[in-house]
């Protein structure tokens, strides 16, 4: 009885407050919306003030502003460019040249850092004492020396001490290494070479088809297929066959000493080499740590279980441990890759013409338009890192534990 009364009282009280809260501003939903609108308005006002204030100040100080300079001729040359570039081209093209050079060194760095990282990360688990020690020393050394010092080391202490063009180190008179860089022969395709490229493409597509076929077959029948060996045979065999049929439609362009240095072939400038080596070795040490952590995160029971069903040690690593370790490794890789891209801006220390060097450095200085050039660079590095994040997140959802 007493209880019932209390409940009714509560109900009444609730009704009372409800009637009191009819005003829309007391409705939590509206209230949140209003606060959000206010916040957005406040932020918009904040940025508007900053931006218009900046432009007023620039104008008052007599400093040019705006993006018009992008269509002006740059008037200076760039050491290395993946697309055609001359000093009569525009600042916009300088921007693209620098961007491509940044992407080039980032891709090379990410590739070699990953290879080094996985090799040294797995080596840590070797039962051989020396192999394990090498892994530890590698990680501890290269992770703890500042990257800038490593870049300068490779550039000034190693590559700069190589002999001059006339005394180049050479490999079979085809590959040359000197203080100006690495010179390697270039394969130049003629008429029928397109067939060879097509054969290579077909081989790569074939590998994927083969892989899924072999997996299906193994799932169904339990029989294994030597996928790896067949793949290698296809990648080498198919283009070779095509080349044979078309009568080797290639000429090799060898680098040759001429005038002040080497001409012909492909030139890898020492600035690119030093930066790639330093970025790979440095980031590789961090990736090795990530790989080690990932493998250690897999419970030992997994290894024992794998052994008990008779898997060989190598297979245990590649089929049981690494796939599970990837769940830990991939998110760490994501941040290492992003750091590598950002660290590549240290290029300016050794004259590698990356985006930061040719655009934020020289273009900013020649035009004086600091805000515009830095803004563009920020957008680029942001976008590249968002892209890496996107790819790695996709990859991550592939290796993630599938919930049942």
């Amino acid at each position, binding site marked *: 009885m007493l209880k019932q009364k209390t409940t009714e009282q509560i109900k009444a009280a609730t009704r009372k407050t409800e009637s009191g809260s009819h005003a829309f501003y007391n409705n939590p939903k509206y209230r949140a919306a209003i606060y959000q609108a*206010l916040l957005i308005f*406040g932020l918009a*006002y*904040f940025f508007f*003030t*900053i931006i218009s*204030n*900046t432009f007023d*100040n*620039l104008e*008052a*100080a*007599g*400093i*040019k502003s705006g993006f018009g300079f992008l269509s002006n001729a740059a*008037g*200076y*040359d*760039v*050491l290395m460019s993946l697309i055609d570039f*001359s*000093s*009569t081209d525009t600042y916009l093209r300088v921007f693209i040249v620098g961007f491509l050079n940044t992407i080039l060194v980032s891709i090379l760095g990410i590739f070699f850092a990953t290879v080094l990282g996985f090799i040294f990360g797995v080596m840590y688990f070797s039962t051989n004492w020396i192999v394990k020690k090498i892994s530890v020393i590698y990680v501890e050394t290269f992770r703890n020396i500042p990257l800038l010092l490593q870049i300068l080391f490779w550039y*000034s202490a190693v590559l*700069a*001490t190589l002999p*001059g063009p006339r005394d180049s180190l050479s490999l079979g008179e085809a590959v040359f290494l000197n*203080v*100006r860089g690495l010179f390697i022969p270039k394969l130049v395709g003629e008429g029928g070479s397109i067939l060879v490229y097509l054969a290579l493409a077909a081989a790569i597509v074939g590998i994927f088809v083969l892989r899924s076929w072999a997996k299906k077959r193994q799932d169904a029948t339990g029989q294994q297929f030597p996928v790896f060996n067949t793949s290698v045979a296809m990648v080498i065999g198919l283009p070779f066959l095509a080349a044979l049929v078309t009568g080797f439609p290639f000429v090799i362009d060898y680098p040759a000493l*001429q*005038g*002040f*240095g080497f*001409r012909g072939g492909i030139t890898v400038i*020492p*600035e690119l080499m030093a930066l790639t080596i330093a970025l790979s070795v440095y980031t590789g040490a961090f990736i090795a740590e990530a790989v080690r952590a990932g493998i250690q995160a897999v419970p030992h029971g997994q290894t024992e279980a794998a052994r008990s069903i008779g898997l060989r040690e190598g297979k245990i690593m590649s089929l049981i441990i690494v796939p599970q370790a990837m769940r830990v490794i991939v998110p760490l890789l994501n941040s290492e890759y992003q750091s590598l891209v950002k660290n590549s801006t240290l290029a*300016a*220390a*050794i*004259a590698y*013409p990356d985006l930061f*060097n040719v655009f934020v*450095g*020289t273009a*900013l*200085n*020649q*035009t*004086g338009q*600091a805000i515009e050039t830095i803004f563009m660079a920020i957008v680029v590095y942001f976008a590249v890192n968002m892209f890496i994040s996107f790819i790695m997140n996709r990859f991550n959802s592939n290796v993630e534990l599938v919930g049942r």
Partner: protein
Amino acid sequence: MIKLSSLIVGGLAAGLTLGAQAGTLDDVKKRGTLSCGVSTGLAGFSQKDEKGKWSGLDVDVCRAVAAAVLGDANKVQYKPLTAKERFTALQSGEIDVLSRNTTWTHTRDTSLGLNFAGVVYYDGTGFMVSKKLGVKSAKELDGANACIQAGTSTELAISDYFRENKIKYKPVTFDTSDQTRAGFESGRCDFLTSDQSQLYALRIGLKDPKGAIVLPEVISKEPLGPVVRQGDDQWFNIVKWSLSAMIEGEEQGVTSSNVADKLANGKPGNKRLLGGEGELGKNLGLNPDWAYQVIKQVGNYSESFERNVGSGSPLKISRGLNALWKDGGILYSPAMR
């Protein structure tokens, strides 16, 4: 709440204004030192010795301004800057004057919000090559690699020259002059290019200075001078006339050793320059003895030139274009009256 936020926003925005527009003179006087942007180290122009003492022709301009404004040429705080950093440092108010072998160009003068206050040294882009190369003229440099400093007018001059002569080169651009020189020494480049005066300065820093030669070609005009922010005319005048006082001193034969005598017993022109007559100092907002202090403590142009880059220095550069107009050069001070 709106009020509060707009207050915050307004405060922040005010904090984001660029360096002060006017009143550099007051700032310097209040601070008691002049903040002067110089190079990171270039023999003859701006260089620091083991004791941390700066010297050079560019440094003497800083010292002259400090002597004129503060009465003491030593009250200068030097900020070493690379070519890339220099203009931002001046625009942002980090330095009061930039005296760092900087070429007076139309673009810099008109679009960076800066003003050039005169010319200290008339220069031009030149080439330095290793003797071993056997090159006698820059036209033979087709296909060569060039060591250059990034963010300089040299980058533009060299590009024009090779294009005009229809020959090719590869620029290896470094941030500092030390790196540029190291690149040349290691053989990364066939030649080093910069303002010719700087080539002589860099050459004496080489391990084997005799192994390198400076080619005869001079391919551009590079008038080097001090720079100030636009919009502070009084400060602009002070820097301009401090430099002119050194040049006028040479024209009138006033030196650091005879300056007291010239003030007491000199011609009317001497007395006007040195503050014995007229109101030149007052018009600049300075003491009457402003130019007296400049010449007494720093010396006239000729003294500074010979001490830093001329016969009294390892560089041994001859006056050439930098002689007075009376002596076959183009150095000329506006009338000191």
